[in-house]
């Protein structure tokens, strides 16, 4: 079986799995990293949103063979380490506003939020309503308003 080496949450990992298995299942079923959730498998619900090399992406739509040894995958489990803290400021904002309800989509929401803040910051601007409107992550509990508030709050803390 082919071997694939890449980095997850700061550590290099090597897995024995077919080339075309999507990264979501490599994370969840092989590496037992269960923070990224399944909600559709076709990159529309965004529940599995994680980071690759600091940018948001959806591992349900990436064959494991697309990753190389230097590619750094960050899941919700590894987010605090990116700021050398117990919690990322976005997670703190989420807690402060008690955003989560059932919680199933929230790891993906937080990862999307962090990437969005970084992106607009790189563009030299701050978050707009249009940016928030453009977030595709579904929350079937309907926590959207609290998510919007927490992103602005989290951005201020980042």
């Amino acid at each position: 079986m082919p071997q694939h080496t890449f980095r997850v949450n700061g550590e290099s990992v090597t897995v024995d799995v077919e080339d075309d298995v999507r990264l979501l299942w490599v994370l969840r079923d092989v590496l037992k990293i269960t923070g990224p959730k399944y909600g559709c498998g076709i990159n529309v619900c965004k529940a599995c949103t994680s980071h690759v090399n600091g940018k948001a992406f959806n591992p349900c739509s990436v064959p494991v063979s697309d990753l190389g040894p230097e590619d750094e995958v960050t899941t919700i489990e590894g987010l605090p380490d990116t700021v050398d803290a117990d919690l990322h400021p976005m997670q703190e904002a989420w807690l402060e506003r008690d955003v989560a309800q059932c919680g199933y989509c929230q790891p993906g929401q937080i990862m999307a939020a962090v990437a969005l803040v970084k992106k607009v910051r790189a563009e030299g601007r701050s978050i707009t309503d249009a940016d928030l409107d453009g977030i595709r992550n579904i929350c079937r509990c309907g926590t959207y308003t609290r998510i919007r508030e927490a992103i602005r709050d989290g951005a201020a803390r980042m």
Partner: protein
Amino acid sequence: MTTARDSSPLALDEDAPPPGRPGVRRRSLIGWVLAGGTLSVAADLSLGAEPAAAAVPSPPQVPELYDLGDLQTQSALPTSQLIRIDLDAEGFAHFAIPRMEVGQGITTAAAMLIAEELEMPVEKVRVTLAKARPELVFNQLTGGSNTMQSMFTPIRVAAATAKGALLRAAATELGAQVSALSAKSGVVTGPTGTSLTYGQLATLAASAEDVAVEVSLTPRREFAVIGTARNRDDALAAVTGRKQFTMDLEVEGALPTMVCRPPTLNGSPRSVRNESAVRAMPGVTDVAVVDTGVAVRAETFGQCIDAVRALDVVWAGGPVDGEDDESVLAELRRAELPMVVPKVPILAGTLDLRVEFMFRSSAALEPNCAIADVRSDRATVWAGLKAPLVAQRDVAKAVGLPIAKVEVNVVTGGGSFGHKLFGDAAIEAAVISKAMGKPVKLMWHRADEPRQGRVHPMATSRVRATMLAGQVLTFEQRHTSVVTDFGHGLGERLTAMAAELPANLGGLGLSQSIFTLTQELPYDFGVVTQLLNEVDTRFNTGSMRNIYSPDVACANELAVDQIAKRLGKDPYAFRMSFLKNAKAKRCLEAVAKAGGWGRSLPQGVTQGIAVHTEYKGATAVLVELDTRPETVNRKVRDAVTGPRVTKAVIAVDAGLVVNPRGLEAQMMGGVADGIALALTSSSHLEDGHFLEASWDNYFYTRQWNVPPEFRCIVMPSDEELPGGAGEAGVAASVAAVACAYARATGKVPTRFPVNHGTLSFTPKSFVPPVPESPVDGLSYTS
């Protein structure tokens, strides 16, 4: 029987029956100190459930006096057993709640109740979900917004019992009278300032036998925890990804398993043409034909998806082959009960309204899933189950084992909205595990959910009202629906309770009984009749965050707006003068004031206002809907945009509020549901199957549909008990959006959601039944 060690006199006779037996004389509230190594206390789960008046005159309507909540609460009485709180040596209180947490916040609220009565920090209370407890019979169903109503008193009695036992133990230890002790923040302090922690007292307070004690509860005016805003107990786990759902659990040998499902609704497999080829695919370990399709088990879910797509199956058709929206609507139309307008003066005006509600998927974001390990002599399942006892019974039947040999573990759910009332995934997983002879971790593909999963039934609602001289003389409603499946235990409750139910229910069938127990019109509209008829059992249905209310309220409130218009009245002023329900009136007034009813708005932005009463509470919603072309036609990739609710204000009176923050969360979610039901979310039936296959087809509210301005007003209440909250936010929301849409367009929509007529996507394939996962994810990083 042991004697209590201090001055607390027992209210029971020496020969009082042991815990759980009927016939305990209750002069007041009785708790139990149970035998154990550390302090263990219990209370009867039926405490506080007083039977409501049994004879119900008409008017008022049934739910005003005796509603679904009463039914559920009272049905516990003859059969319910004990709920238990255990104190450990570290000072933590443990409670396994016989209900299911699906995001609605009941574990947090239960922890607050315990912390209140036990005088300890909420953080030191650990609430978990109880396994299926067959002895609870009817009393382990999470639904009908009933958890806080039914558990409020029993949990507090158990906690108060624990506190009493801790105080008595401390009194012995400190050589003081109980009355000289104080308990605060998990510490008991004596008159000299010496103190003992609950952790230290947990062993000292342990009892060698079961002892009954009389307790009194903290009066409402002294509440320090109940009524304060409290964050969820699992919030940290949720934001760190540590919160575990069914699919996150590791059960040895339970490999990923999925099912290749038929191309038409409820079809079935005849044979598999390429079983050996699929079995030889990478990662695949097993293939098994079951009633619902062809199951595959593999090392990863990704390989299950590939195998499901590769399976070449000969299918038998399903029971609705060839049917579509229009044919089912025609069937409903034929089943609509006639109006029987009472004799009214000849000059009376008549309003007729008929509204259609399309099928809707109740799927949560976490798809149906379950882990099952079925052996020859026993079975164990893990799943999100709101009715674990029914699932236990059904699993036992499906795999041919005695109920006692089936262990059902209840796992926190990633949402429910009515979906997890049914054990569909647990039963299917058990059947597959038995067929394969191995443990399985079953997950439905997202495409399976809208296509084969539970839906809210299609329905029509007809309203006829007569008016004369500024008064409404009659208001009749005929609701007609595809049959709603109540096979999750509510039916058994009603049957068992038949003798106790209000007289008005006599002779009604199950659905009609539930309709009568939940529906009420909060207005003084003269002669009011609301009737239900249901036809067609071929669909997989269930409640969807409310049973009938969102549709019924939507039709009613649209009619109310039209009546007001006929009478030349403002929608708000008209409601205020005709509402007979004081709570509804106060809620309506609150949203009108906070939302600025009647304020000047740009052309194309319209307000809508609506009320709803249920579960002894009330809600009112005011929305502003932007129907200007630049808003309606805004572009978001692969999105349904359309009119946008730009402001939503909701007021809720849910009786005594345990956790206002949790209540506000429920209302926010209710508004999001209401917006989707009115504007965007539905399933299209065509040629015997539903076209929707994922979230890019099924348009639940997304960020681009969210009101930029949202406000929730929690109304003060003098009630001594909590009311229902989980579903309360939906009905008035869908109605307010519908009313705003009707006012904006000058035309009352006759079909909901309003965009159902536009198919906003290209349907995905039916064979294979699930889409391939994309491979271009790295070109969409952001």
